[in-house]
């Protein structure tokens, strides 16, 4: 959503009584810079002023920003520092390998700056992702990073009411009274039930979305969550009337812009096998179709299951979902497993993304090492600091620009700056006003004369 689209509901969002607002993760920076041509820092500062009562939250995934590559520690710290300087007060840190060393770089820096730091544990259903592993990681993050809270981050929508009944007590037992947050997605229809069960078990904070931007592959809606909590005699500080205002606006906006509205999804057993995130599943199917491989889709999904077992059960979440998916495709299409090994697969297997939770099958590891690029060192090396050379490369740039320069290609940042300051015009809801606005965005449209019954609109450019 553009800043102009967000602005009309900022006040209601701020007054609704939320504990915090998940404002932007690196992926939203990606959307801002590359698609909306909005300066994400300018946007953050603008909304920081609007959200007077509610802290803004950002994220740090492992030691990465955008894309799959790891970044040096000085860049991770620089990222946290820029989040802080631009008004973010909460930062969630996750690592899909549960590598606490990776997480501590951003956790420690956030704490040094006085931010509220949340250790996020990505949920996965596999033989190695036991309650014990979750509890051990939470304990390490509390003892070594002094995180303020722990979050269960069920990116893959895999949690069930059964599993939450053992997972929450295991975590609570090591958390010494710190708050436990839950974040899930509705891909299998179970999340609303998981949320209710979690609250009964003592979870302190639920991540929700405001319908119509809820359900489907998103979070459960605030509206139905509030209703379910009330019926089960749980109270919240959330003001339902503010939520209804925001919801009405979003519904109208979705209708006007032709955006899909979140609808409940049905339970799907198959989801627990391939565990592919909702967004990736559709994308992936499309890509395989384009490659003329749609007839082998099932075979590739089966291979994904096998590869996860070979590689020590990596979680199907960025970047591992893509890494595993591509290796599965190469294994199936090439007719021989691990004959072709992308660089990222070898890097994963050798621990360049972090310490693995379980070892790679020895004979698979041999093939990956033999057939992967010999350029990849057998032992992960710490990355040299990048900030000094970045400063040298862009002597006139301020720190906000510098981190964007690091994250995005030069022309992408240039185009974003060329687009000028944020466009704060609110969306036009009158159909006629909107038509004019839309025509004006299309320079090739020279002249339009449109008439329905007794209303006529004539639009002419460059007269």
């Amino acid at each position, binding site marked *: 959503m553009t800043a102009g689209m967000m602005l009309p509901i900022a006040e209601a969002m701020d007054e609704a009584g939320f504990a915090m607002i998940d404002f932007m993760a690196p992926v939203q920076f990606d959307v801002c810079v590359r698609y909306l041509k909005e300066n994400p820092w300018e946007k953050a500062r603008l909304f920081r002023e609007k959200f007077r009562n509610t802290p803004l939250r950002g994220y740090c995934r492992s030691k990465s920003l955008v894309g799959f590559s790891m970044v040096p520690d000085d860049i991770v710290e620089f990222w946290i520092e820029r989040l802080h300087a631009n008004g973010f007060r909460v930062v969630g840190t996750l690592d899909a390998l549960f590598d606490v060393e990776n997480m501590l770089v951003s956790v420690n820096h956030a704490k040094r700056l006085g931010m509220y730091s949340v250790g996020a544990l990505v949920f996965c259903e596999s033989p190695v992702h036991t309650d014990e592993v979750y509890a051990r990681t939470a304990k390490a993050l509390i003892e070594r990073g002094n995180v303020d809270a722990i979050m269960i981050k069920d990116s893959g929508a895999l949690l069930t009411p059964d599993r939450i009944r053992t997972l929450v007590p295991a975590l609570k037992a090591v958390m010494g009274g710190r708050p436990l947050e839950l974040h899930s997605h509705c891909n299998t229809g179970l999340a609303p039930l998981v949320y209710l069960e979690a609250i009964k078990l003592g979870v302190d904070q639920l991540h929700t979305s405001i319908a119509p931007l809820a359900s489907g592959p998103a979070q459960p809606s605030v509206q139905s969550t509030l209703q379910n909590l009330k019926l089960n005699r749980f109270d919240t500080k959330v003001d339902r009337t503010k939520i209804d205002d925001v919801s009405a606006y979003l519904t109208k906006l979705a209708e006007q812009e032709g955006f899909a509205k979140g609808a409940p999804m049905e339970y799907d057993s198959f989801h627990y096998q391939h565990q592919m995130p909702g967004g990736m599943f559709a994308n992936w199917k499309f*890509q395989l179709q*384009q*490659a003329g491989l749609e007839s082998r889709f099932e075979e590739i999904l089966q291979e994904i299951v096998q590869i996860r077992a070979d590689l020590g059960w990596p979680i199907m979440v960025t970047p591992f979902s893509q890494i595993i998916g*591509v290796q599965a495709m190469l294994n199936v299409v090439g007719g021989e497993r691990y004959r072709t090994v992308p660089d990222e*697969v070898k890097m994963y297997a050798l621990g360049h993304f972090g310490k693995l939770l379980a070892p790679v099958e020895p004979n698979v590891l041999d093939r990956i090492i033999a057939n992967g690029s010999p350029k990849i060192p057998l032992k992960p090396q710490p990355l040299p600091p990048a900030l000094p050379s970045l400063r040298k490369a862009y002597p006139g740039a301020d720190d906000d620009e510098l981190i964007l320069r690091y994250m995005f290609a030069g022309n992408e940042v240039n185009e974003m700056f060329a687009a000028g300051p944020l466009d704060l015009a609110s969306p036009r809801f009158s159909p006629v006003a909107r038509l004019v606005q839309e025509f004006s965005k299309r*320079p*090739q449209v020279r002249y*339009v004369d449109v008439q329905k019954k007794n209303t006529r609109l004539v639009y002419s450019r460059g007269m």
Partner: protein
Amino acid sequence: MSNSPTFTNSDVEEILRVVDNLTDVEVKLETAEFKLHVRKGVTAAITVSEPAVSMPPPTSAVPAATVGNASAPAAKVSVAPSAASSNSEAGTVAIKAPMLGRFYRAPSPSEPAYVEVGKRVGPDDTVCMIEVMKLFKTVNAGVSGTIVSIAVNDGDMVEDDQPLFFVKPD
């Protein structure tokens, strides 16, 4: 909030759909209840200011993956004729694609190509990258010699085993 009794939001969608499907024409449409007259032309003004966000990509275009420079493997790409003919060049060996994907001659758009024609390479020298669905495979020469031709354009899709470079071995 809308107080327009005649034009509705679905009319707006319909009109924009018609307008967006036109190029360089003038169209007049008239029914009992509805009249539309559009002139749309390629003028000096066609720049990049088309709304890029919510527009679906044209279905017939390159298999654009959803995110930026991410690319998907193309539909069956036949071996380029130039590559096939230079294959018969006496005394050269081909460096072939280890997997299907997009061929990149440089580590990033802002950096120089790994190799040019005339460059001497050793077996462990990187000559290019192949990208498939955002993952990369570094390709080494695998042979000592001199690059005599480059069979594929930067950014093109290649098939598994397709010749990429021809090398005159030492």
